[in-house]
């Protein structure tokens, strides 16, 4: 099967540099508003700074996939003398907590790396963080090219062109939810 090049986007989090200001949450929620930048609401952000100030715990977490099943998440990790709650590391939008759930619709939120047209140089959270907590990298990876993927891609691209990426993602998430329900 033929190989195709794919851009993989990653963000490295240097949590030691985080000062807990949450500018990333502000920027994220503003960017994802419709119309763009019309509102600020950190509860709608797809990044969240986990903060326990006196415990010296400050680190941002990105919204990952929705999961239908909640978990207890009661375990903890001690790293470098600091005790972290397992739940705080988790990126999932899940039924056991409010994190990464849209406060109005209850729909899951997910980081989309600020995909937009024209594309941004880097996601908004990275751009606003001048303390270099968030380090953005793009690298090319070779992936196997498959016919079916390509046809799905064309279809999805058409949908994105017509409705915009956010609309499509949200629809897919809704479908996913209703299927699981």
């Amino acid at each position, binding site marked *: 099967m033929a190989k195709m090049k794919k851009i993989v986007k990653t963000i490295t989090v240097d949590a030691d540099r985080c*000062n*807990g*200001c*949450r*500018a990333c949450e*502000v*920027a994220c929620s*503003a960017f994802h*508003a419709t*119309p*763009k*930048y*019309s*509102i*600020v*609401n*950190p*509860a*709608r952000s797809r990044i969240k700074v986990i*903060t*326990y*100030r*006196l415990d*010296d715990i*400050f680190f941002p977490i990105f919204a990952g996939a929705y999961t239908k099943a909640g978990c207890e998440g009661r375990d903890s990790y001690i790293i470098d003398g600091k005790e972290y709650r397992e739940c705080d590391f988790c990126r999932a939008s899940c039924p056991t907590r*409010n994190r990464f759930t849209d*406060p109005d619709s209850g729909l899951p939120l997910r980081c989309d790396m600020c995909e937009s047209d024209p594309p941004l140089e880097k996601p908004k959270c990275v751009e*606003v*963080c*001048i*303390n270099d907590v968030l380090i953005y990298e793009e690298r090319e990876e070779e992936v196997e090219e498959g016919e079916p993927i390509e046809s799905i891609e064309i279809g999805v691209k058409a949908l994105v062109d017509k409705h915009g990426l956010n609309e499509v993602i949200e629809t897919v998430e809704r479908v996913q939810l209703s299927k699981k329900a």
Partner: protein
Amino acid sequence: MRYAETGYYLEIDLATGNIEKVETDPKLMEQHLGGLGTDVKLFWDRVPPEVKAFDPENILVFSAGLLCGTPAWGTNRTICSTISPQTNLLAYPMMGGFWAPELKFAGYDKVILRNKAPQLVYIWIHNDKVEIRDATHLKGKGAVETQELIRQELNEPDAQVAAIGLAGENRVFFASIEQSRSSASRLGSGAVMGDKNVKAIAVRGTKDVNIARGEEFMQHMEELKKFVLHRNENPLKGIEMVIHSGVGSPQAMRHVDEQWHTTGFSWGNARVRRKNFWTEEIYDNWSKSHWSAVKRFISCFNCPQQCGTLISFQDVPRYMMKCFSKLSYLLACQTENMDFTWRILHKAFEYGVDSFTTPQVLAFAVELYEAGIFTEADFKGCPKDNEGRFFWLLDKVAHRDGIGDYLADGIYWAARRIGKGAEAFDHNTIKKHEQMVVKLAMLDPIYFLMYTTNEKLSVTQMEGNFPQTAKGTPELKEMWVRDWIQAPNEKIKEYFMGWNPRGEGSNPYYPTPQMSSEIVDWMEMLHNIDDAIGLCAGMGSFCYKPAYHVHNYHKFISAATGMDLDKDSLKKIVNRNRNLHRAYHNMRGITRKDEKPPEDHWRHRFPELEEELLTTYYKYKGWNYDGIPTKERLHELDLDYVAEELIKRGILKDGEDEKNS
């Protein structure tokens, strides 16, 4: 749709437990912006001048600035307005941290507390759900630990909590309200909160703050960000203190070098300068202590600058540092031991007391003891060493125990209650409020006006953009002016260029009264803007060459609110706020006679010049000889109703403005 503001106040009657969410008049924003501006209007409308701090009719307002919750960096101030028990004037101590934006996200611009709760309570605001909850189990708990206890009790790690400690509960006149890495400290808002039996207010919000013209707002933000990055990479040169070389609050924890403060400020109860204090040995000792205490630099909400510090020192429970606290106790206590700072601050922050007033009060008590006014019996059980005394006295004050009950009223009132000549030791208050511990040789006309005339009563919160000292050479002056984009006009730059450290063009006769009035008016305006929009003074008014200035404030405010403000219309609004505040203070008895610095503030005084300064400044402000806004001035600012009231009360004599001025 309301933009930037939420359009709602949360009104809580603590006596009845009645809670109402009240929609506000959109015209209020056009007239007064928000934050301090709309607070002043509330007091004018609701709290008559006869009402005292601990009367149930006094209100305590927790106010978010107009731009809190927008993407504008540094707009995170909570303004805690109330009638001060110390001064009987409208005080508005402010704090950074995270509380005000959270309140906006919960859907409110202000929380207004009136009357008193029958027993100790805390308030829990979670969007539309608001509860008054029992807090008797939190009685006596520290202001820092209470925040954590409430988060745990609510199982809401994201709740932001503003709390008082024992000092607030005991109505210590300089009790603070503490919150995350900040506090509203001055003038006793914590005492009023304690008097109202409110231990804390916790808030969590998940609603939207609307921005009128988002794309435009973000373009302004882009420019601002570039500027901040530039300033971070290029600290200012040729200034007095390295801690003022950046943008943000003074970077007291970034730098160990405190030569400027330790040799320029006065030690003890604002008594002695130690011009040779700073040595290499001190620097080495302090470095060791300093860096062993710093755990991490931290920020307030939506601000990249790291002006706060998590302190973790030996066995002392952790807390977060607040700017000049680092030195205020140390100087007053007359110790050279920096470790003392880390220990006493923990205690002070948990009790919840103001770091400017408290150390002076403690040093005042030591002086009274040394003078024989306080007796051995008064000091029974007090350790003999300086540091030990301070810990002991601080305990006494927070508990209002023994002599602590006098001291807890602040120096002015304590001196009068104690008598026996104690009044002579009250030498550093203006309008009954403790001032910065600076005693210099030569009268500075700009500082004279700032100290004496401002409604804030605290010089660090009204000085700022204009350099504190003249530059000695033409090169230094030109270096300063070259990129001084924040100067409001060319005139201000010329005044600065003509100002010399000594000889011709130096203090006290230069800047002239007229120039000084213009400079002070500009700086005050900056603070009034910051206090209305909720901007950290470190990003604007109290900062050399800051990110926000008269040439860009109106752009942010316009894009956020949808109002089309320019520099002049913004200036008019904040002038309106200031004059309303002034008139309110006039109703509470403030006039020219109150506007004087302590006798020993400068060694060289110039009574005639000082009178001329006041007269010129008043005239520039549109006030009469007594410092009361004239009918014409009030009319210009759409404050005819204020003029009417002042005339009705006989404070302003109709038609006498001209004669007086």
